[in-house]
Structure formats: structure tokens, C-alpha cells
């Protein structure tokens, strides 16, 4: 799969890229919301792994804007955040509406668990919220 990882911490992004690449995925990384949307405008990906707390605009803003474009309306998204869902105040229903297939909390997600979540994207009935 071609994956775009949006993660502002360079060390964490290195770790996740290493894990995903070792599992055969082609991973691109950007570190803020603007760069994410710029990248998607010019490149095709199969999956977006998206941090929420980003410099400038947050990941939710990225997601809302993403869904306004026909090309990206159905792009699968995994959220990978330091915040648990309760801390964000976002309901599961809203995450479903935004097309989020998994909500992962970084402190509870080892790299191999992210790899497993990405592997599930290609499976049917894949939502895991």
C-alpha cells in the first residue's frame, strides 16, 4: 500500500516508517496539515495515517477538508494520536462520518500494532473504532 503518514514528531515518524516499510508498504511522511493536503493534491495514496495534534491546523481540519474533495472522499484514514478519543470529545459516530477506520492512541500502539491496523484496511468490514 501507498501510505501517507502525517506526524509532526520526527523520531516517531521514523519509527512508524521503519515498521511500515519493513512490512512492504511504501510510506511518505509530512509533518503538518498544509504539507499533507499539498502532498495529496499531487500524489495518489491508498491510506492516510493522521496525527491530530499538528502545528498550525490540526488533523481534524485536514480530515474535514479532505472529505470535501471527490478524489479523497473515500480515502481510508487511521488516526494515530497522543489523545484518546475521550480527550478529543469526538464521538464514534462523527469518526464514522469522517471515514475514519481506526482510532489508535500512540501510547498504546506499538509499531507492529500500527502495521496490523494497516493490514486490516484491505480486509472487508474493516472499521475498528
Amino acid at each position: 500500500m501507498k501510505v501517507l503518514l502525517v506526524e509532526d514528531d520526527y523520531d516517531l515518524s521514523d519509527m512508524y516508517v521503519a515498521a511500515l516499510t519493513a512490512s512492504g508498504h511504501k510510506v511518505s511522511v509530512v509533518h503538518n496539515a498544509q504539507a499533507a493536503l499539498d502532498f495529496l493534491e499531487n500524489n495518489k495514496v491508498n491510506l492516510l495515517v493522521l496525527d491530530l495534534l499538528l502545528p498550525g491546523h490540526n488533523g481534524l481540519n485536514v480530515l474535514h477538508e479532505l472529505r470535501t474533495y471527490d478524489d479523497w472522499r473515500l480515502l481510508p484514514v487511521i488516526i494515530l494520536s497522543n489523545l484518546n478519543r475521550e480527550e478529543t470529545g469526538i464521538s464514534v459516530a462523527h469518526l464514522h462520518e469522517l471515514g475514519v477506520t481506526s482510532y489508535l492512541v500512540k501510547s498504546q500502539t506499538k509499531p507492529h500494532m500500527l502495521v496490523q491496523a494497516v493490514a486490516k484496511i484491505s480486509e472487508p468490514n474493516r472499521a475498528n473504532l
Partner: protein
Amino acid sequence: MSNTGNVQIQKQSLSQMDVVATAAHELKTPLSLIAGLSSMLKKGELGTVDETQAHYLEKIEYSSDRLLRLTEGLIAMNRYTSDASAMQFEAVEVGSVITQVIAELEPLATQHKQEVVFKSKRALPVILANHQSVYQIFFNLIDNALKFSPTGSSVVVTARVTGEHLHVQVRDRGVGISSKELKQLFRRYGNNPQPSSTMPGSSGLGLYIVKNLVELQKGTITAQPLVRGTCFKVELPTIQQLSLFDPEF
């Protein structure tokens, strides 16, 4: 005058908790990195490691995971004690949570030839609780029990329902606690009892967090010194009619 003094102390205490919670937030990223990289190294995903290296990498991973759980507990406790309405309640299968915790602590237990046994005569009811808090409570209690138990011993977790309460006991075979230590046990800077020689001690912050989270679930927690070890008893209210509650799943 005394009321003003009490308000000032309370404000200072809340401010201190804010500082602690802010620090805890800052720790999450570096700790996630340590835990994640040590996991990858241990599994040989970043190059070959020998058995000895894998053994010590597992210790690094486990220690950073424990610190992550502690920071999450501090953040949760800070958030909920300053704003109880922030706590989201939902239907929680406590049995599943305990089983999950035991599975996550299994590597630690195995390292010291310990085991955690979970006994429940009947299927446990679903209770109205905060899932993260319930996880934190039992993670801290069982982790603590393993930490203070000797090599080769068992930690026994039992659960039962009587009336409108779920009772969970976590019993260890550690060195136990004196009546003097008992009074300090759930305080923020209370000292844990003298640990067994196989395990390091701790500041007891975990039990302070547990007590706060239990009470936020409208429950109670007590510690009973035993001849051999200690038994922690958690009591949580159950709900009888889930139809009265519309959880956000």
C-alpha cells in the same frame, strides 16, 4: 480566615496537579518512542539481537509501558478531578478489561515465573463506568501485586456480584503491609511497603491514582493486610437496566 487558607491550599493543589498533568502529557511522546523502538529491537525488526539483548530490551519496553500507564493515569485523574463531567461513562465489561490487563502483564509475570489467576464463578455483568479508568485501576493493582510478589508466586484476582455491587479482589503473596504503612498507602506520596528482593519499590503514586479513579466511579477501595501478602478490594456499583443509558459506542 481559615476558609481563605483552605481555598488557597486547594488552588495550589489544583495548580500542582495541572503542572503534573502537563508534564505527563510531555512525557508521552518520548516514552512511546522508547517503548516502540525497544519492541522493534526485541523482535529483531531492526537487526538481529541475541537472547540476552532481547531479554533486556523487553525490560526496557516493559518499564516504558509502565511509565506510560502511569502518565495516562495522572492525566486522567487530573482531568476528572478538576471536571468530573469530563468523564464519559459507558457499558464496560470488567471481566474483559481484567483479562486484557492480565494478558498485557503476562510478559512481566513470566519473567519472574509468576502467574495471575482470574477467578469468577459467573459471567460478570456489564457495569456503567469509564473504560479507561477501569483499565487503569486494574492495571495498576495487578502490576503492583506482581511487583511486590516473590518469584514463582501467584496473584489471584477474584470477582463476584452481590446485590448492586461488583466486588473485585486482587490478592498477592508479597511481604504485606504494616498497619502504619496501611494509613499511608493511598496517599499521593505514601510509601509502598518494603518490596521483595526481586522487585524494586515505588512511590505509591499508582495507588493514589487508583483510589481517585475508583471513587470517581462511585466505588470504594480498601487494602487488607494478610498473614501472607495483601488483598486489595475494589467495589463498583453495577447497573441493572442498560436501557436507561444510551452509550456512545
